[in-house]
């Protein structure tokens, strides 16, 4: 119940300017691995409007991080991206490399997962944030340094001048996460892609990180793509939720609606597997995206599956004005 209440509040706070910031149309990200093609992201369409936080939920390996990296075109060379990525009406996929670099870190920012491996071990953390500031602002070095120190104190990193000179191994996981956040918000981006911000953090730190993300988003009206496997984080932050399974979006809607009335059996299963709801895991494990099952990709694990589910692949259908689901036997 607590989940649903916070979600309701979020929806009400939702920004009034309903201008589309990012529109993803039929995005396909395929990898060529040893001659075979792996469809990590398969025909995903979604929109993020100004000031909105969209929670992208799914298990490990469902393609949610690849989706995030596709937006910034930061995937290795064997990845092939198709479809449309419209950022403020401009097609990201047709930008030149130099234009792309202007976008990265300035307009669209990534707060990567794994804080422990996402900072350069040989570089003072202050310099790593400074780099981002200097790259996108025409600031003198001393001004940029004071901006970084300012960010550090805003994010409650104690003794900013000393922290500035620390190396990553001298920081705890939570502090590294904050440094990455400082890096992310340094240039007042329009969109922040937050990849698993609470992965591997203990409960206290998780609350702290969620609070900081919330403050960041509401202070600057920044939009966020919140990639997570943790429903409670999504519930606390996201205005809308998209659930991803095996490279596809299986359900998408307002946070409160999805949490209160999950329509897709997978979403329902995920919610039932939460500790607060009895810890009932979904049987089986998510399929390898190298060999996907025929028909509905979820049918081998689905209690509602029938003949139709094994034979044909369901489309994402609109249930009501803002709720979409990809299932033949929608839960009610």
């Amino acid at each position, binding site marked *: 119940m607590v989940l649903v209440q916070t979600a309701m509040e979020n929806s009400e706070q939702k920004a009034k300017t309903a201008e589309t910031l990012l529109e993803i149309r039929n995005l396909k990200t395929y990898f060529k691995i040893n001659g075979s093609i792996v469809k990590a992201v398969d025909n995903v369409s979604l929109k993020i409007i100004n000031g909105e936080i969209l929670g992208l939920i799914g298990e490990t390996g469902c393609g949610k991080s690849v989706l995030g990296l596709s937006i910034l075109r930061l995937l290795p060379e064997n990845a092939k991206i198709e479809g449309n990525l419209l950022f403020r009406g401009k097609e990201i996929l047709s930008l030149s490399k130099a234009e792309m670099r202007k976008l*990265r*870190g300035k307009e669209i920012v990534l707060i990567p997962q794994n804080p422990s491996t996402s*900072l350069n*071990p040989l*570089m003072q953390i202050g310099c790593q944030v400074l*780099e981002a500031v200097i790259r996108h602002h025409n600031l003198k070095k001393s001004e940029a340094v004071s901006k970084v120190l300012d960010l550090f104190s805003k994010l409650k990193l104690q003794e900013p001048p000393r922290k500035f000179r620390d*190396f990553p191994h001298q920081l705890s996981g939570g502090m590294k996460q904050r440094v990455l956040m400082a890096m992310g918000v340094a240039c007042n981006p329009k969109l922040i892609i937050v990849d698993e911000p609470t992965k591997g953090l203990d409960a206290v730190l998780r609350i702290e990180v969620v609070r900081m993300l919330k403050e960041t988003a509401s202070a600057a009206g920044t939009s966020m793509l919140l990639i997570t496997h943790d429903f409670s984080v999504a519930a606390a932050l996201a205005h809308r939720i998209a659930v991803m399974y095996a490279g596809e979006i299986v359900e998408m809607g307002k946070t409160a609606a999805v949490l209160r009335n999950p329509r897709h059996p997978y979403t329902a299963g995920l919610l039932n597997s939460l500790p607060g709801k009895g810890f009932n895991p979904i049987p089986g494990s998510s399929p390898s995206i190298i060999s996907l099952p025929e028909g509905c990709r979820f049918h081998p694990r689905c209690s509602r599956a029938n003949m139709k589910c094994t034979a044909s692949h369901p489309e994402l259908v609109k249930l009501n004005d803002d709720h979409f689901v990809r299932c033949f036997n929608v839960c009610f």
Partner: protein
Amino acid sequence: MLLYISKRLAATVLVIVAASMLTFLILNLIPGVTPIMILKYAFIGLEEVPNDSEIATIIERFNLNDPLYKQYFRWLMEVLGGNLGTSYVYGLPVSTLLLSKLPATVLLAATSTVFSLVISIPLGIVSAINRNTLIDHFCRLGSLFFVSMPNFWLGLILIIIFSLKLDLFPVTGYGKLEHLVLPCLTLGSGMAAVTTRVMRSSMLEVLNQDYIITARAKGLSETIVIFRHAVRNALLPVITVAGLQFGHLLGGSVIVETVFSWPGVGKLLVDSILARDIPLIQGCILLIATAYALINLFVDLFYALLDPKIRYGRGL
């Protein structure tokens, strides 16, 4: 830090003692009767056959009938007293001989190492960045070629091409820059081949790290990502390998020194082994082991300078 260095130095002493002990034992296992070899090389000439009284004189003079441990400890005590002994063959103090040969070896080792690094680091970077392209294949093929090529053969080929045909550099000799070129090329190219491969694979590994994605996500240019973020991290394993190679060369590169008649420690060692010049052999081994161990220590300290995790962690 001081504690660490003194621990390492203590370990170094143990290594040196063990190395000298092993050498001493092995000398008595290899074919050839020690007193006869000493006689032939130092006194009567290789073609002559020594008679029994000559052999008996040598055995008595150098105490060769004493048990091995006695011989070894006599040598060890002398060394601890600061005296490396006198060469049987040359009749000169071992320390004098070593010091006269050391500069040539150090010069060759240092220039070869520098040459190999100057070649291999850029090649490794270029190769990794252009992975699986023509440039990369070319670099890999080239390094495989130079790794597989025996030093003495490459040395001879270089002599044929650059000395005999083109008359650019002298065949042998020591003292001028032009004498250094061919031995340095011979040694350096083999080393560069190894370090290029290490640098390439280390770069590839680093480029796959999360912090490289972070750097790119900041909008940094590829040049900055490569040189500020990737190369420094990728250099760590290269430094280890280059350090080991350098330490190895300080012991004298026997074959290359022989091919080019380079007056270094390696050639001195081979000659002394042939003559069973025990004090000189032991002296060479002492020098080689010490150099190797010290270089290793130096590499570790240098590593700490580069890697903050080692610099501040583990209570150094």
